[in-house]
């Protein structure tokens, strides 16, 4: 087990270095690194001089990258053109985005898994068709359409939820959280349904039934525990992905989270914000994946530990 975790950790290092270098090379290697740093105007000369010095642009690319990463790791993400410290801003905004992601993940886990189980148990009946068709439809609607339409219906027309969630309280974030989780809810329902159906047909379930165990035990314990593994790992990966996907939801509901910050950076053409936030989100995504892989090894003993 320990060696499995260690191996996954070691495998992760080149990926993290590669991915950050890829982003770095796109910004500093190709094209003009100072492009898009100063809003709509051209950069003033004094800024360019300082910029070249700050990012060591006179050094070779690899050295630049090393110095840049050293700065990132010490928590220095640079300053936006208007003087905001990007790291500080990200730190202040994490709680909102995490709250949003927690709502989305809870929604996914509860509704998605339950719908999948019910559909699998009622395979070929009305409930199954309802779940299959509605999940197909929901998967097809892009998040920004779900967001805009539910803002129109639940926020403006019916007035059940606040139209925007600038404050970032739990209730404000409820509707945006459901929107953010909508795609994955449908995906998890489908995933859960197909794994359940496959496992219900498996030999060990048939054996359990043949031994005379009731449906509560064969379904509730034998089938369910094994069928949860893919759904749980998917939710784990999703937690990392949701942070990035939140850019759309946060733009629609005007939420002051990480995604909203990224959108602000795009809109005001502030490269330091865009690059810093994207790098940060990619790192979070990779770390979430790493955690899930480790967890997967614990959950599923069939995975090889050697």
């Amino acid at each position: 087990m320990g060696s499995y975790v260690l191996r996954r950790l070691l495998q992760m290092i080149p990926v993290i270095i590669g991915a950050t270098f890829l982003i770095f090379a796109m910004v500093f290697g190709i094209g003009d690194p100072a492009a898009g740093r100063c809003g709509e105007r051209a950069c003033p000369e004094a800024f360019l001089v300082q910029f070249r010095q700050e990012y060591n642009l006179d050094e070779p690319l690899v050295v630049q990258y090393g110095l840049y990463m050293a700065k990132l790791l010490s928590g220095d993400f640079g300053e936006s053109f208007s003087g905001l410290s990007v790291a500080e801003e990200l730190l202040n905004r994490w709680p909102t985005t995490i709250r949003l992601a927690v709502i989305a993940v809870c929604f996914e886990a509860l509704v998605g898994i339950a719908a999948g189980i019910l559909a699998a148990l009622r395979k070929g009946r009305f409930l199954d068709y309802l779940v299959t068709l509605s999940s197909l439809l929901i998967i097809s609607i892009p998040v920004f359409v779900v967001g805009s339409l539910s803002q129109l219906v639940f926020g403006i027309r019916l007035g059940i939820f606040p139209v925007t969630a600038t404050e970032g309280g739990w209730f404000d974030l409820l509707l945006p959280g459901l929107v953010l989780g909508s795609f994955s809810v449908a995906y998890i329902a489908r995933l859960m349904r197909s794994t359940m159906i496959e496992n219900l047909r498996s030999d060990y379930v048939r054996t359990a039934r043949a031994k005379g165990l009731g449906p509560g035990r064969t379904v509730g314990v034998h089938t369910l525990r094994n069928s949860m593994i893919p759904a749980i790992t998917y939710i784990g990966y999703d937690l990392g992905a949701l942070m990035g996907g939140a850019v759309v939801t946060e733009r629609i509901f005007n939420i002051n989270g990480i995604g909203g910050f990224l959108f602000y950076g795009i809109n005001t053409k502030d490269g330091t914000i865009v690059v810093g936030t994207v790098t940060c989100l990619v790192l979070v995504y990779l770390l979430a994946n790493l955690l899930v892989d480790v967890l997967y090894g614990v959950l599923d003993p069939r995975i090889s530990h050697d």
Partner: protein
Amino acid sequence: MTDPSGVAVSEFGTPPAGEEREGQERQQARSLWSDAWRELRRNPLFWISVVLIVVLLTMAVAPQLFTSTDPRFGDLAVARQPPSAEHLFGTTSQGYDVYARVIHGARASILVGVLTSIGTVVVGGLIGLVSGFYGGWLDALLSRVGEIFFAIPLLLAGILTFYLFPPDLEDPLILQVLTVVGVLVLFGWPSLARLMRGAVLQVKPNDYVNAARALGASAPRLIFQHILPNAVAPMIVVATLNLGTYIAVEATLAFLGIGLRSPAISWGIDISLASSIGLVRAAPHMLIFPSIFLTVTILAFIMLGDAIRDAIDPKLK
């Protein structure tokens, strides 16, 4: 002594073995794909998606068949009007006809989806074939490179690239579309390469591949005649399902104000323009109609992918 006898054996042995092998392969290929086709024909979802896709393709190729209104003609006198007989889906803030814009918007989305899917299949498929077939250091290298590109989520990659290198608004639509396609392919190929590599590793140890190798078939012949036809099915399914995802990513980028931008016409751009809070309240039709078209397009491709998957792999049904 050994030499002539070897020739004799091969002269004697090759034709029947070759014939039998080819015959067997043809039969197998026929049975897999004809089974799949028989299965597909019976699936109503398949026919619904085919009809939808044909209509959408016609829209993309010849929008004039559906509307004669110029989608770029703005009449401010009729701005933001709700649907009426004259403007079936209403008008936008600029007085554009929403119906005409929705019809003309199909082209960008369909082009991005189809071209990106083809691109990822070609790039990912080839890389997966090569790394699965040759193995060794080449496989290790290609897999690591794939992991790095796979590590960056598609949406974030799109945001970063188009922020740094925005498409030139002066360029014709097809060039702008191709930049979007290029970026999506660059970050989208690894999942297909991984899938293809896995399938190749499953097919490679089979007897018919070993037989062909023993008979002296060249590497390209082995790859394209024997391995590819038997390993391509999972990739086709996933590529069809992904097509909808690529359309959604393109529209999302346009929605965020990067990627394709006005005056290009795309559903994502129109939804973005319609979704400011004041407008959603005043003119919801601007939001609803492009949303419906976008959703139906994605739905059609996902249904097609689902149907093909069910047909190829009935176990998953």
